[in-house]
């Protein structure tokens, strides 16, 4: 008897234009002690499917058809009251975002204890004992202390452990893990997934893992269910799907997943500075040289926090240098120092000017700083927040030209049209608002804006992290081709080693504000010398599959 059997599930949402079906007949089966991964991109209906199983659809959502059976009992038509007896007791849910899923004003111990109280565990002493047991079970050190702490005192990984403790509190037969690690760093992600694996092995719990990350799914699940536009396009044993995908969409997904890519490394492309006589003549192959950068932030009542501590690196002209690290490693702060949105406390940043000679930009002020923007541009992580919602795409792209008073209005418009074409968007987006564009399209607009005044250096701050794998792959291809044609130098900030491996020529690994290892991408990935680099590499999901 299957733990979960879903047949022909249909879910629709109320939208402005009427009801819209987003899940069109999905079948999923989870057997005893099995991990099944529901894989798909944003908008594929995977989260909706998972939430519909236990009646937790967002407002306006409705199950229109199909059946859901838990351990052979059909719960499709159960009302909320009856479903409540199932949630927690038989099905545990691990939500996606550990930051917003815990109540900030109550200690975590109380929150874990709440599920016990709701499901009728009497006696506060008994509950307290069980809570401590659970917190220890999910690998939190000093459970007695942790139980008293508030969510903001815990790291993201710890909070996710607390949520897992809540999910397993009543020993459910099935855990639905909705993108449990998407918001976490790679090393933390691995530990959390290991924990879910252990629980499955030791308690025999089945897991329905919802993820957009094919690497994670490949590592952890026995069976994959690939969703696209609310339909199951392929399902079967993981190994089978990964080695011989039958559906074209699955094949595309596999080809685009950076974690599973096996192609070669990018080597510092000789074409540019051999071909480019000016660069060779200048005897300076570097576009950016940073030396001994330091940045401290004042923290009230404590010693200043040193976010960037003696960071040095060089980037050759026309190549991509990646800064890799986990959250808090100082990589974004470094990017903001290089683009001079922040003022370094110490150190030098040199940027090659038109003639190829390096000039210090760390001390620039007001108008010098404004002129610097002609040479260096930043692309942001989140394309939903980096474009002004009240402007048209044409206005956004032409903004740098407008600011530097370049050309007439008609010239600027022509340049914007050219750039939009260059980033492979249809010309009709020019008059649209960014609200009408998808994430990938918006990021293309942001790239077009960055290129508008023909900068030499583009800093990409997690520029592809918020995008789906297929969109991510297209954007990376675009960045590569732009680099080759325009001779751009990229400083690529990322936490994702798989993406870094694909795009960068050289890499600096950062940890706690320091660079722990620098080298060419090939050397660093094939023969890492620093312990931390090895740990990071081991944590990349999907690598075991590549090796096998």
């Amino acid at each position, binding site marked *: 008897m299957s733990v979960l059997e879903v047949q022909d599930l249909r879910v629709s*949402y109320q*939208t*402005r234009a009427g009801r*819209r079906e*987003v899940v069109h007949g999905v079948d999923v089966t989870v057997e005893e002690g099995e991990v099944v991964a529901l894989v798909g991109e*944003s*908008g*594929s*209906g*995977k*989260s*909706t499917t998972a*939430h519909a199983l236990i009646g937790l*659809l*967002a407002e306006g*959502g409705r199950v229109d058809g199909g059946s859901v059976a838990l351990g052979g009992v059909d719960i499709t038509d159960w009302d909320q009251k009856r479903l409540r007896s199932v949630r927690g007791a038989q099905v545990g849910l691990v939500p*996606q*975002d550990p*930051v917003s899923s815990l109540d900030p004003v109550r200690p975590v111990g109380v929150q874990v204890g709440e599920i016990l109280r709701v499901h009728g565990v009497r006696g506060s002493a008994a509950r307290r004992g069980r809570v401590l047991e659970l917190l220890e079970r999910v690998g939190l050190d000093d459970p007695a202390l942790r139980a008293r702490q508030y969510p903001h005192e815990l790291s*993201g990984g710890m909070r996710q452990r607390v949520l897992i403790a809540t999910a397993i509190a009543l020993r459910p037969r099935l855990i639905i893990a909705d*993108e449990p690690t*998407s*918001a*976490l760093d790679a090393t933390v992600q691995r530990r959390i997934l290991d924990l879910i694996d252990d629980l499955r092995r030791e308690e025999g719990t089945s897991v329905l893992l919802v993820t*957009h990350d094919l690497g994670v799914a490949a590592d952890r699940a026995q069976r994959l269910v690939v969703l696209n536009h609310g339909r199951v396009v392929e399902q079967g044993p993981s190994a089978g799907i990964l080695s011989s995908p039958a559906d074209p969409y699955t094949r595309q997904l596999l080809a685009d997943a950076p974690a599973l890519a096996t192609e070669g490394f990018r080597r510092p492309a000789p074409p540019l500075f051999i071909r480019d006589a000016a660069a060779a003549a200048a005897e300076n192959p570097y576009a950016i040289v940073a030396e001994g950068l330091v940045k401290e*932030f004042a923290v009230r009542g404590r010693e200043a926090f040193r976010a960037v501590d003696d960071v040095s690196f060089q980037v050759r002209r026309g190549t991509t240098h990646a800064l890799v690290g986990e*959250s808090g490693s100082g990589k*974004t*702060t470094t990017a*903001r120092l290089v*683009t001079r*949105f*922040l003022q370094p406390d110490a150190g030098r940043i040199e940027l090659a000017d038109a003639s190829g000679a390096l000039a210090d930009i760390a001390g620039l*002020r007001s108008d010098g*700083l404004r002129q610097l*923007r002609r040479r260096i*541009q*930043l692309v*942001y992580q*989140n394309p939903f*927040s*980096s*474009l*002004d*919602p*009240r*402007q048209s795409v044409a206005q956004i792209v032409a*903004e*740098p030209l407008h*600011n*530097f008073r370049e050309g007439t209005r008609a010239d600027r418009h022509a340049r914007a049209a050219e750039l939009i074409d260059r980033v492979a968007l249809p010309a*009709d987006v020019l*008059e649209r*608002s960014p609200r*009408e564009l*998808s994430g990938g399209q918006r990021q293309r607009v*942001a790239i077009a804006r960055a290129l*508008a*005044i023909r900068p030499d250096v583009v800093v990409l701050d997690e520029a592809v*992290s918020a995008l789906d794998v297929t969109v991510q792959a297209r954007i990376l291809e675009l960045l590569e081709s732009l680099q080759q044609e325009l001779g751009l130098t990229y400083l690529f900030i990322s936490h994702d080693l798989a993406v870094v491996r694909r795009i960068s020529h050289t890499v600096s690994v950062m940890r706690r504000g320091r660079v722990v290892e620098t080298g060419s991408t090939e050397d660093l990935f094939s023969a890492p010398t620093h312990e931390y680099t090895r740990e990071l590499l081991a944590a990349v999901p999907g690598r075991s599959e590549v090796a096998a």
Partner: protein
Amino acid sequence: MSTQTSERVDAATAAIAADEASGTVLDPVARDAGALDGQPTRRSNVARLFAQGRRPSWTLVVAIAVIVVAVLWAAAPWLFTSYDPIDGVPAQKLLPPSAEHWFGTDAIGRDLYARVVYGAIHSLSGALIAVTVGLAAGTLLGVVAGSVGGWLDDVLMRVVDVLLSIPGLLLSLSVIILLGFGTVNAAIAVGIGSVASFARLSRSEVVRVRRTDYVEAAFGSGGSFASVLRRHVLPNSLTAVVGLAALQFGGAILAISTLGFLGYGAPPPTPEWGLLIAEGRNYVATAWWLTTLPGLVVLVVVLSANRISQSIGRGTR
């Protein structure tokens, strides 16, 4: 530049923390729901506003109708009544509401409905002046404080705090004592009372917008302080302020009526709404309509303005 640096650093670290903590993915369920099949058709902002508005709720339709009628009363009162608001017929004094006199008549035989209709111009123009004064001065203060930041922000906001700490009516009365009696002066006094809330709201909106990525990106594209303020910060922060203006419009009608009631507004026999209620006060026991009906008119108009304000506020979210 230097005055903004500390705030910029704070904003930047907060933004980095938020970015890194929240990871990459937005709310998946909502995203599934909102996922678009193809590309949406091109629309102007106005067209989109209407499309989003779906069918407007009937309360909003009623509210707009009420305000339109009130504005028409102010613009062309003679179309709505044939009676004279100033000269009464003493023989017809204190008549209860009837088909002839919809709102009844007052102590010297003037038609109350006519007085309410002719009074609209005083109350509405007064409210308009009050809101304009509050909107202009308050928004200016708030935008300057929010965008320049630093010590100027602190100084301006403490001034606003002082304004907020004085009860509104007391503040209006003090201003009237300084300016002298009259409809316009009463309106200005009410407007000054609302400067503080406009300043607070516009400052918080400006501060919010200033921390967004697109404002930083605009600086990153070489924008100067003034151009970024004009092109990005103001357009994105003023919607909420417009919503507040509609809300304050209702409040201003009420406040001006209050001042009129207390005798600080237009002198009699001007048919100002607050004054109408005040004059009817002496006859509450015998002629209830003299206070009740103008009071209801004020109530309905104020509620309508609030309803419209609420829908403007909802549109921004």
